[in-house]
């Protein structure tokens, strides 16, 4: 206790020197608080985003690879294959959906004014008129992934009905149900459009109210282009569609999203799906572009702050070392006196160190206060400037961008360009950061303390006193 009180007194006795040391230490700590707070907050978001986006696997035709193979035909990946890829221990979940057009002689589509099922014909070049689909059949692997049915998704199953679960069960919109006088328990009979035709007899187990937009755009709506009317969707399970034994070239469109438990397992997962027969012209990848697009500005900010911190720490440490050396001359006499009075070297060392620690801890408290207040505005301004930089880059890129429209029979959802980067960050001092900064503060104290100790305690008391007298 006396050591601490004496250390405090000693600090006050040498105000000039200690104010200088405290100022430098405070500057270091404030900038460290700011940079660490920002750095930790952004790396947390980067990691979260990596887990979120980086866990989503894209399996898509790699056109370059396909071109190299010299094959004309698009490689075949069947509906069963997509289903089998989903059965992997590396995945946390997978969302499979199949979409195809249905034609029914008994059920009319919403907005199909002609009600002329089967008359809306197309020619596939064989000269044979074919009946176009009027309803859209959606087969989903997991009802929980239907975002439209989430709390404010716009669709709600009406009382008396339920979500599909077993084979050949479906749900339809109230529009479609009213138009055709369908109620829960009725069966819809329909068939696929392309040859060989598959027949569906689907039991309606639920009818849903639908607040979602029916058409993708006003032009579609004006034209009452009813094959695009979402209220004509008949939603069933993926297994129901799969059970009909479709081949991929039979007008079926499949979306497959796979989510890894751990994004680092991407190559293991790829090895597994290759073993299950995925052709080489398909690429298996996480969406690095999206990941970079979202976290890019954050990463630049983290880079800027950590560079800044390194510079501050190095410069600050140099200044502190210099100050410690300057202080040594002043201290020598003091140490000589104490040694002459019989104080042990170790005790003197403890005294010097406690002085340094007291300075650092006081700076730590003040620095944490100032730093935590300053972090948010600083983070905001750095991040917004980085978002601007990223936006300019994207703009420059997109001017050269050519949109490639793929007309494969099997189309897989791929990432789109123009991701919105994280542009807001909530930075706050957390326990982890406080611990880091405390360690840095103690290291700074140790640095200046140890230099003093090393230089001063080498001498015998007489020698030190003689130099002064």
């Amino acid at each position: 206790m006396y050591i601490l009180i004496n250390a405090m007194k000693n600090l006050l006795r040498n105000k000039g020197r200690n104010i200088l040391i405290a100022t430098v230490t405070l500057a270091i700590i404030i900038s460290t608080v700011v940079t660490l707070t920002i750095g930790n907050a952004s790396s947390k978001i980067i990691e979260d985003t990596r887990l979120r986006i980086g866990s989503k696997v894209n399996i898509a035709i790699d056109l370059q690879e396909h071109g190299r193979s010299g094959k004309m035909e698009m490689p075949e990946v069947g509906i069963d294959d997509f289903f089998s890829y989903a059965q992997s221990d590396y995945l946390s979940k997978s969302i499979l959906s199949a979409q195809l057009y249905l034609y029914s002689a008994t059920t009319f589509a919403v907005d199909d004014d002609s009600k002329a099922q089967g008359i809306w014909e197309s020619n596939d070049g064989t000269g044979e008129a074919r009946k176009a689909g009027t309803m859209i059949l959606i087969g989903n692997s997991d009802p929980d992934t239907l975002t439209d049915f989430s709390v404010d998704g716009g669709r709600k199953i009406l009382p008396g009905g339920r979500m599909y679960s077993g084979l050949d069960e479906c749900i339809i919109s109230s529009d479609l149900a009213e138009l055709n006088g369908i109620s829960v328990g009725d069966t819809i009979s329909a068939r696929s459009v392309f040859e060989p035709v598959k027949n569906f007899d689907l039991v309606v187990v639920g009818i849903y109210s639908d607040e979602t937009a029916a058409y993708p755009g006003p032009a579609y709506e004006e034209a009452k282009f009813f094959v695009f009317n979402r209220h004509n969707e008949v939603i069933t399970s993926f297994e129901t569609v799969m059970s009909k034994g479709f081949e991929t070239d039979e007008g079926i469109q499949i979306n497959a999203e796979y989510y890894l438990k751990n994004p680092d397992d991407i190559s293991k997962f790829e090895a597994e799906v290759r073993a299950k027969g995925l052709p080489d012209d398909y690429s298996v990848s996480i969406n690095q572009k999206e990941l970079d697009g979202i976290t890019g500005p954050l990463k630049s900010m983290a880079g800027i702050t950590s560079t800044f911190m390194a510079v501050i720490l190095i410069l600050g440490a140099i200044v502190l070392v210099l100050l410690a050396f300057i202080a040594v001359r002043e201290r020598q006499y003091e140490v000589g006196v104490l040694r002459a009075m019989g104080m042990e070297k170790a005790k003197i060392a403890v005294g010097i160190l406690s002085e340094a620690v007291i300075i650092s801890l006081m700076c730590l408290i003040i620095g944490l206060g100032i730093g935590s207040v300053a972090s948010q505005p600083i983070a905001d301004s750095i991040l917004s400037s980085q978002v601007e930089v990223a936006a300019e880059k994207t703009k420059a890129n997109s001017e050269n961008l050519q949109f490639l429209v793929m007309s494969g029979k099997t189309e897989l959802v791929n990432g789109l360009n123009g991701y919105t980067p994280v542009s807001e960050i909530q930075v706050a001092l957390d326990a982890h950061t406080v611990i880091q900064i405390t360690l840095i503060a103690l290291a700074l104290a140790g640095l200046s303390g140890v230099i003093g100790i090393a230089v001063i305690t080498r001498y015998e008391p007489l020698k030190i006193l003689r130099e002064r007298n």
Partner: protein
Amino acid sequence: MSTLTLQNVSYKYEGSERLVIRDVSLSFEPGNVYTIIGKSGAGKSTLLNLLAGLDVATTGHIVYDGVSLAEINRNHYRARKAGIIFQGFNLLTNATALDNILLSMHISGVKGINKKTRALELLEKVGISPEKANRKILKLSGGEQQRIGMARALAHNPELIVADEPTGNLDEDTANRVLEVFASLAHEEGKCVIIVTHSKEVIAIADEIWSVDEGVFRPVPVNEG
């Protein structure tokens, strides 16, 4: 109370060939005041440093309590046994007189008494008022600093007191007051007091006088002065 004995002690400073202390053998007994006189540069302060355990003899032994100072923890010896009054005071100039004394008490591990009260008593004894006790050393005169150095040397109640020119900066009255303290320490409390001096007043209270020249010590008859 123990005797401090020098056995054929010689000393030369590091890097110098000249013996500053030459083959000295003598004893300092408790209860006596010893004065050491001699020309400037004769080796007086050097001897005091050896007696105070700030340095060790180049050859020979300084024995205290039956053990050579070369072999003991001299930090402990300085902190507990010896009280040193330096020619150049060696006080912490940024600290108050009181703090200087309290610090010395802390180093010596003084316990069980009210340290502040004792420190103020000691200062009073050497003529430093409580008001001055709370002043920084820098703001006190040379004579005051010298007396604070003395109070500090006595703070841990040492058995052995070595003083280098303790009245050098004092007027006659103050010097006499200080000398009374030294005399009573030796004659009433049984301490061993060794004083280096040029002053006749100091010599007057001496029980034994040694003269030193070129590092050689000779006894001086007390009555001659």
